Each structure stands twice: as structure tokens, then as C-alpha cells.
């Protein structure tokens, strides 16, 4: 499994669009779908990419909805959130329509049907589906946090947010300079 310091693999996946599906003026199933791609990540944006084994299982909607509820908190921290499983986009769509907690989910739900991304990440398990893994990726595409839990152990999304806050809370201010330190590294500060 890829871990901190590794580059996150590139991807281009079909996803169910974020937001309230009942408000979409759809003529065909494709109107509910979009493409999420690592290349389209905005400059200076962080990413949370999290995986679950199967749609329509019990633990998943709770934590996916929890990521959804905190979507604005993540956005305030310049962070995009993406949920992924190996189910097809049509299954994602059906699950989102079926489960009231997921109906207006504000984050895209992507399909890694070919299992390319989960394989590259090393989270494809013996059952042929994704482990319950979470990655935090910085604007340089470097993994800064990786977590995986076995079986049906749910995630604490607040913990992901706490880690993100800690990662982004560098003491960048010159005020942090202590008397006795030879010089302030102005060039490093200017380059921060």
C-alpha cells in the first residue's frame, strides 16, 4: 500500500455528480455522471480520497455522509473530497437515489471499475474490492496521511479533518523565531 511520501497515482474515473440528484433535469443516465481526473486538480488544492469496499453495505453510508457533511469544512481548507469504490457508476447512482443520507451528497462518488487506481495504491483486497482506506494528498501530489481499517471498522472523519489542520498549521510567522537562533532564514520564509 502506498504511504506517506509517495506520489499519489494519476486517475481518470467516471463519477456520480455531487449535489441533490432529484434536482437534475436528466434525459439519460449519463446526465448524472461526470469525469473526475487527477489532472483537473486545482493549483494549491489538497485532496482527500477515500475508499470503501461495496455500495449498499451498512457501515459505508454513515461515513460517506459524514464526509459529505464536512465537505464545506474541507473546502474551507482548500481541499477536494472524492469517494471511490470498485462499483460501477450506475450502482453508485442507484445507491445515492436509494439512501436518504446520500441523496444530496455534496461530493462526487467515483467508480474504479477497472481497479486500476486501487491496484496502484495497493488496497485491492482478496475479495477483489477496495479496502477501507483514506489518503490525504498535498498540492504537490504527495501523500501526507494514509489510513486503512479492516472489515467493518468505520472511519472517524473528524480525525481526518484534525490531521489536515495539523498538516496545514505550519508556524510560518517570523514571530516564531526565538532569541538565540543565529538568523531567520528569510529566503525559506519568502519561499514558503
Amino acid at each position, binding site marked *: 500500500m502506498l504511504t506517506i511520501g509517495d506520489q499519489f497515482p494519476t486517475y481518470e474515473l467516471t463519477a456520480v455528480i455531487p449535489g441533490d440528484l432529484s434536482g437534475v433535469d436528466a434525459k439519460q443516465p449519463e446526465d448524472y455522471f461526470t469525469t473526475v481526473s487527477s489532472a483537473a486538480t486545482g493549483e494549491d488544492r489538497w485532496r482527500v480520497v477515500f475508499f470503501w469496499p461495496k455500495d449498499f453495505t451498512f457501515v459505508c453510508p454513515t461515513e460517506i455522509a459524514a464526509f459529505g457533511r464536512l465537505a464545506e469544512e474541507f473546502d474551507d481548507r482548500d481541499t477536494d473530497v472524492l469517494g471511490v469504490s470498485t462499483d460501477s457508476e450506475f450502482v453508485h447512482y442507484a445507491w445515492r437515489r436509494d439512501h436518504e443520507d446520500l441523496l444530496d451528497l455534496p461530493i462526487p462518488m467515483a467508480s474504479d471499475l477497472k481497479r486500476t487506481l486501487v491496484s496502484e495504491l495497493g488496497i485491492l483486497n482478496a475479495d477483489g474490492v477496495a479496502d477501507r482506506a483514506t489518503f490525504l494528498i498535498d498540492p504537490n501530489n504527495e501523500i501526507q496521511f494514509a489510513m486503512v481499517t479492516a472489515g467493518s471498522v468505520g472511519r472517524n472523519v473528524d480525525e481526518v479533518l484534525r490531521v489536515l489542520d495539523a498538516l496545514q498549521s505550519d508556524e510560518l510567522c517570523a514571530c516564531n523565531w526565538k532569541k538565540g537562533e543565529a538568523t531567520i532564514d*528569510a529566503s525559506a520564509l519568502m519561499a514558503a
Partner: protein
Amino acid sequence: MGLETLRGALPPYAKDLKLNLGSVTSSSSLSEQQLWGTVLACAAATRSQRTLRELAEEAQEHLSDEAYEAALGAASIMGMNNVFYRAKHLLNGAYDDLRASLRMQIIGKPGVEKVDFELWSLAVSSINGCGACMEAHEAVVREAGLSREQVFDALRVAAVVAGAAQAVEIDAAPGAEATLS
């Protein structure tokens, strides 16, 4: 409106500040952005709404939208950092082993030239009264190439804006001689 309104609102006993306010904003070794960003950040740091209202209007004419936002950002983030780091400094290193765990992303990406943001941070620190922060930010701007004269000009601006804000607020206080309309 703006600078002239503020100067006109200063009571007779604050005539020195009225004249200083004119001189520090008319001739300066600072670039236009450095000068007016310092004026705006300092006006915000005085916590005098009357002062900020007038000087913000004037500063808007000299600053890009990005610089205007960044100067207000400098006043805001230093409002936090001056309190926090002053406390740390005054406690003589007893808490230096602990992480601040405070977000200060704007210092890394202020949206303007970093040296200008550092200069505004220095000026605001002088108003908020944190000696150690001033020492640190002064070293940064000097190392980045600003001259002693430029640093001194920024400190003059901070002092004059703070004094003018004091006079305006004295004059606006109930019971004080009301010359503000």
C-alpha cells in the same frame, strides 16, 4: 473623503498628527503598495472604526484588490500572532517545546509580494506592541533587501496612524470636545 476627511476631523490639539499624517503619506521611500498597505494594515490594527473607514477609502485608490485584501489579512493574522507569540516570548521559552497548532496559511501565500506582507506585519506588530515579533519581522525584511530608511518609514506610518486614531477616538468620546460632525 478619505485621508483629507480624517485630517480635517483631527481636533486642534492634534495638529502635529494632522501634519505628520500628510507628510508620511506624501513623501516616502516605500513603494506605493508598501506605503498604502502599511497605512491600511495599521488603520485596521488601531481598532478605530472611524480611522479605518477613512483610510481604507483612501488606500483603495492606491492598492490592487489583492493588496487591499492582503493588508487587511496582515492586520488580522497579526492580531492573533502578536497576542500568541508575545505571550510565548514573555513566558521566557517555557512553552517553546509545544506546537502552536494555529493556522497561518496567509503568511505562506499572502497573494502579494512576501516582503510587503512582512513589512505590514512588522508595522502592525509595532502597534500591537510585540518587541520580539518586531525584531523577527525586521530581520526578515532587511534580509529581503529593504533599507533601514524604508523600515523606519513604515514605523513612522504606524506611529502616526495610531496617534491619529487615538485623537479621533478621544474627540468622539462622550463629554469630549466634539469637533467631528
